[in-house]
């Protein structure tokens, strides 16, 4: 029943990842000794699919739950509800939320994560070789004698060349861009098919950033990797992702082809987010941002639409009804809004 092996050719057949009603709540105690009765709804029942070879973007402001979602998808956090079906093409799809022990370990071989801050994510006391070879060691993925060769090839692939000049250096000897390349090498060395990239370029300078973005794109093509690309920067998402989902307070409010969502946003939050992005052109004028106030608290949110308190087009119906479901609107994107 499995169709061939993984690869870009299978795009559009079965999804690599199917997220169903994924939920993560963090209990919050009102007092040190008291049991918790309320919780932060970090990810609040979201569903989406990620096709093979696709780069899917999660965008939103800080605190919207995009990073938590990413961590749930590689099981760095335990969900409190919902399912994540992972279909590597070798048999039936597995629900990764229930994996334990060896099964979890073999899942980690296929799913990796790249973190935002290359100054924090690399151990300062380990050489580049030790850092990049670590996953090979943990997964016992290649004989010890071949590790050096494998790491060298990987470094070459991420543009750290010649590898010999980097292998035995320490992170503090490298620039931010080089460190992020090391972090990418570490994530990709065991040949994962799914990578969660959490703001991989937001700490990098513009002149360096393009290089890292291009690198991630070409590696995805060469190695058949699918990305969940997390970013707060809509412009970066436009360049890296074929489809995006906009998150607000733990919910997906709009999802669809990147160009459709960015050029013809339907949800009032997406519209506000887009009109707030400064334009690198001194003669351009932006539409005024329509929403007011700050992001509401994710602590036990009322059952109505999460965006209600800030929404410029909310009405009584929005107040009295549950959070709207995602429905197809406009240029084929799906929008969670009663009035869009």
């Amino acid at each position, binding site marked *: 029943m499995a169709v061939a092996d993984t690869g870009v050719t299978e795009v559009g057949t079965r999804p690599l990842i199917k997220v169903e009603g994924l939920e993560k709540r963090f209990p919050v105690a009102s007092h040190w000794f008291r049991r918790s009765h309320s919780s932060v709804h970090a990810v609040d029942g979201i569903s989406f699919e990620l096709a093979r070879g696709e780069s899917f973007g999660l965008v939103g402001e800080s605190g919207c739950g995009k990073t938590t979602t990413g961590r749930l998808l590689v099981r760095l956090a335990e969900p409190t509800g919902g399912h994540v079906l992972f279909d590597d093409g070798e048999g039936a799809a597995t629900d990764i939320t229930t994996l334990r022990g060896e099964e979890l370990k073999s899942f980690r071989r296929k799913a990796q994560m790249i973190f935002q801050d290359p100054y924090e994510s690399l151990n300062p006391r380990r050489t580049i070789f030790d850092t990049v070879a670590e996953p090979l060691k943990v997964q016992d993925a290649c004989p010890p004698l071949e590790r050096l060769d494998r790491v060298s090839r990987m470094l070459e692939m991420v543009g750290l060349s010649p590898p010999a000049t980097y292998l035995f250096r320490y992170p503090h000897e490298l620039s931010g861009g080089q460190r992020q390349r090391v972090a990418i090498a570490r994530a990709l060395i065991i040949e994962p098919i799914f990578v969660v990239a959490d703001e991989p370029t937001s700490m990098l300078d513009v002149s360096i950033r393009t290089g890292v973005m291009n690198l991630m794109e070409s590696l995805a093509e060469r190695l058949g990797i699918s990305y969940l690309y997390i970013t707060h920067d809509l412009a970066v998402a436009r360049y890296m992702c074929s489809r995006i989902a906009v998150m607000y307070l733990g919910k997906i409010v709009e999802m669809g082809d990147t160009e459709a969502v960015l050029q013809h946003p339907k949800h009032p939050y997406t519209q506000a987010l887009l009109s707030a992005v400064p334009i690198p*052109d001194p003669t351009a004028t932006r539409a005024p941002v329509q929403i007011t106030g700050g992001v509401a608290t994710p602590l036990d949110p009322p059952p109505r639409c999460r965006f209600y308190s800030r929404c410029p087009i909310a009405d009584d119906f929005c107040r009295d009804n549950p959070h709207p479901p995602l429905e197809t609107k406009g240029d084929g994107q799906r929008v969670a809004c009663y009035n869009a």
Partner: protein
Amino acid sequence: MSNQSTSAPVLRVEDLGMYYGTRSGDVKAVDGVSFAVGRGESVGLVGESGCGKSSIAMTLLKLLPENGRIVGGKILLDGTDLAPLSEDQMRTHRWNRIAMVFQAAMNSFNPVYTVGDQIIEALEVHIETSPDVSMERVRELFELVSLDPGFIGRYPHEYSGGMKQRAGIAMALACEPDLLIADEPTTALDVIVQDRILKELRDVQQALNMSLIYISHDMAVIAEVSHTVGVMYAGRIVEWGETVDIFRNPMHPYTQTLMSAFPSVTGPKHELAMLGGEPPNLLNPPSGCRFHPRCPYATDVCKSAEPPRVEGSDTHWAACWHPLEA
């Protein structure tokens, strides 16, 4: 665009140099920088990390760490040179006439005092006022930056990121400075909050006819707040001009790359430019033009000799041997 910028400048910086002494030698963070800021003018300094833009801000305010020292040049604030002043003498200028908003506003407040008390303290150190007058002034300042005056008696941890940044701006405006330096004040904020802070900063600047130096790595933000832009690379200003000219006709190859490396959410999707190599080490900057190792147009002369200042117009220049057609 403001036309006040044609009057005598509030600030004139001449051939300023500031080095950080380290065990391996001097880091030439600011090297031979000259520029002027007119009254009511808004100047943007743009560049990547380590280009010296924040070091310039710290030098202008003379808030240097122990190993930082001014090695030459003048900082003329309305004709008074700040460069040779002692810390005591500097205190009468700092905050009264030249103030700053920091990037990490969240860390620039003391967590154990209320925000109101801290602004009052700043007022009382610099201007002799009575407590009642100070309180009234704080209320005015809060309204100026759209903060709820009910938060005057609250502690910094009760403020959100955007509110802290507003309070930072209120504090900087307390003594009505002639010149405000804002060092990446919105970098840590979400776009919707950033949008509002930028708007308020622009409104306040115009209302008080204050001069502003806005420091950022983000070309798009600079395009929105500045009349004039200075592009920095490796401790130097490599291009200077009115914002429209810089964006329409960049003369320096670095400016051009910086501009086309910025992805845009609107308009056609263009190919993003990239630069090879890494920014230079300022312990030992490249000879000649500091950009030459990464420049696609570099020739032998760029490696050996300092580039000349080429003028594209009265207000637009670039330091380059092979400037792009203006």
